[in-house]
């Protein structure tokens, strides 16, 4: 490094003292305005550190002297929204489900509220728009395991299915295969019979044999014609909708060792108005009875 700053003869500018094969680098400093913006940004950053949450401590962090907290700000906004909604919520709470359905304005409020609540709480299992997925039933169709009237839908949402609530909807289909009630061949026959309820079968002998097994073991809950019994949560076996699949091996699997879905009770987790709104929403998706 030269101790004396050298000036370039042609331009009159200082050089950096660097030289490569006779080419010297001019020292062109950053523009003043640019530097000032940088300094201002530094000052701004320091002010920010003091005012807002910034530096991490060992097991907490410096909260800033303004005490700003995004979570609290969100809570405040939610509280404001609740206040704004309060009038409608009261009306929804006061009206019966039928009254809500009869009032177009309340219906709109309840449907929108139900839609939002559904997306938050129900969609993870039942899918957006209640499309259903895997063992979680669709609510957009017109088949209901536990009944599709307003009251029935309301109770299913409120108390759940096989949940820990005392009033929960509950049933238990026997494990025909695992517990040795029926032989494998018999299970095949009853499955063939069940398939014949909703479509033509190519194995009339099996259907005939399955019919008598069905009458003996299944008809008590699923009905003589397999039309189901919503009061017991026994699904309709004569329609085109299959929760655990409608192929013969899928039906056999369900008879051999039934799967039992669980839905939590929402009473206590959601307020009564939200459960009402959810009922209205689910009922209005297209299958409500």
């Amino acid at each position: 490094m030269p101790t004396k700053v050298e000036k370039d003869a042609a331009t009159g500018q200082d050089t950096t003292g660097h030289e490569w094969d006779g080419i010297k680098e001019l020292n062109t400093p950053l523009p003043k305005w640019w530097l000032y913006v940088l300094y201002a940004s530094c000052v701004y950053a320091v002010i920010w550190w003091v005012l807002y949450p910034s530096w991490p401590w060992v097991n907490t962090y410096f909260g800033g002297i303004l005490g700003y907290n995004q979570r609290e700000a969100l809570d405040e906004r939610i509280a404001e929204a609740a206040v704004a909604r309060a009038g409608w919520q009261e009306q929804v709470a006061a009206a019966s489900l039928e009254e809500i359905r009869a009032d177009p304005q309340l219906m709109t409020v309840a449907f929108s509220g139900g839609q939002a609540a559904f997306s938050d709480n129900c969609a993870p299992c039942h899918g957006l728009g209640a499309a259903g997925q895997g063992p979680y039933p669709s609510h957009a169709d017109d088949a209901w395991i536990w009944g599709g009237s307003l009251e029935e839908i309301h109770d299913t949402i409120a108390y759940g299915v096989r949940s820990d609530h005392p009033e929960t909807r509950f049933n238990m289909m026997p494990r025909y295969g695992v517990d040795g009630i029926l032989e494998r061949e018999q299970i095949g026959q009853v499955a063939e019979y069940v398939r014949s309820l909703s479509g033509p079968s190519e194995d009339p002998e099996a259907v005939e044999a399955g019919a008598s097994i069905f009458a003996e073991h299944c008809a008590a809950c699923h009905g003589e014609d397999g039309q189901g019994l919503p009061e017991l949560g026994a699904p309709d076996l004569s329609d085109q909708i299959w929760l655990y699949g409608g192929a013969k091996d899928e039906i056999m699997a369900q008879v051999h060792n039934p799967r039992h879905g669980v839905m939590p009770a929402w009473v206590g987790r959601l307020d009564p108005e939200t459960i009402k709104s959810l009922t209205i929403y689910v009922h209005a998706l297209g299958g409500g009875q």
Partner: protein
Amino acid sequence: MSHATVPLEDAVSFKELKKQPLYAARIKIHPKDIHGTFRKIKWTVLVVLLGIYYLVPWIRWDRGPGAPDQAVLIDMPARRAYFFWIEIWPQEIYFLTLLMILAAFGLFWVTAMFGRVWCGYTCPQTVWTDLFMWVERRIEGDRGARIRLDKAPWTAEKVRKRGLKHGVWLLIAFLTGGAWIMYFNDAPTVVREFFTGEAGVAVYFFVGLFTATTYLLAGWAREQVCVYMCPWPRFQGALLDEDTYVVTYQNWRGEPRAPLRKNTDWEQRGDCIACHNCVAVCPTGIDIRDGLQLECIGCGLCIDACNDVMDRIGRPRELITLDTARNQQRLARGQGRVQRLIRRRTVMYAAIFTVFGLGILIALGARASVDVNVLHDRSPLFVTLADGSIRNGYTIKILNKSREPRTYTLGVGGVEGAELSVLGQEGVSGDRIRLEARPDAVTTYRVGVTVPEDALDEPVNDIEVVLDQVGGGERAVNETVFRGPG
């Protein structure tokens, strides 16, 4: 260093370069007052245009109850634009695009024939600058007086004149900004609210904004807007040709120029007596004798100024005139003038202008008072029902642009045996369903379309949603898809 080709003493020092400012300082222009044909046209256009701008919001137009009765109104909160008998919904914003295309080609057309008459007469920058200059002239006097006042020390008289001028300018600017918001609010209401402090923040903000821009652009920036800010002068070269009428100094007649002396022999010299009157009246401060240039806004005030001088010295008028480059060449060669207003360029601009103009008129005439928008449900894409039939859900939005409630029937085409129903509503179903639509509003229905199990061959089927007015001939059709397991 042996390859250096620039001698050291010729190289400009970087530091020397840096001392030169990036922008030339503005030379203040003091346009002189002038009387004549072009000035009269300019005043007339100014009065008419300002009259339109300030008065149009006050024109009333009865549209029946519940609708604004202002003839020209852009109602942002209600999302409607009104122009006399026309009511535009946001969905029809393309009319604005068409209108702008029409305006652009109209501008090209006129410019190709007569040069920058838009700049010289009708551009808001010109109109308000002219108005501000008129105020300035009334208060501070004409060119000479203003130059003297500029140089004079700050006496009480100067303070009074300057204060008065800026006060009047600000008042005009305020009225300009005030009139602007009347196009977006009911005029009588907003005027009352403005002065009682009841108007919204947006109203005060925009009045302030347009007051400030008018005051700055017309009072201070003036010709700098045309010369430095506006893109239009930059592409005039692409629009003008040798047959365009532009403000022209007749070089062949004026040169050689010389000051007027007694007993001048006009045979030995040109008609230009170098009086600089054409420069003194120019609102952009240029010398038209240098030829057509970017700064010339084509206002023709220099023609008035020169004619005035020519009359006084007894020479023929029109030394500066509206003429074409071709004619100037012909005249210099001793040939006569030719006029070619109809040429390929102008015919094409006129044709495009006419096509878009007719397009707008036809589109407005054929504008239906109903439209239907259809949104296919994304979740679930389709629903299998207990009997095996397939249902698709749609959000149907009926745009009823009329002022009375209407009933429509909705049907679908493209799939066999389709059954429609309003989801969540009992009793409304069939192959066509009746739907009510609120007046001047969008009414939304969730509609399910169900087809039998065997009606579908493909997972995706194109269908048409058809909306027919009950008791009227209006029909709206929209295309969507019907999905199934396929």
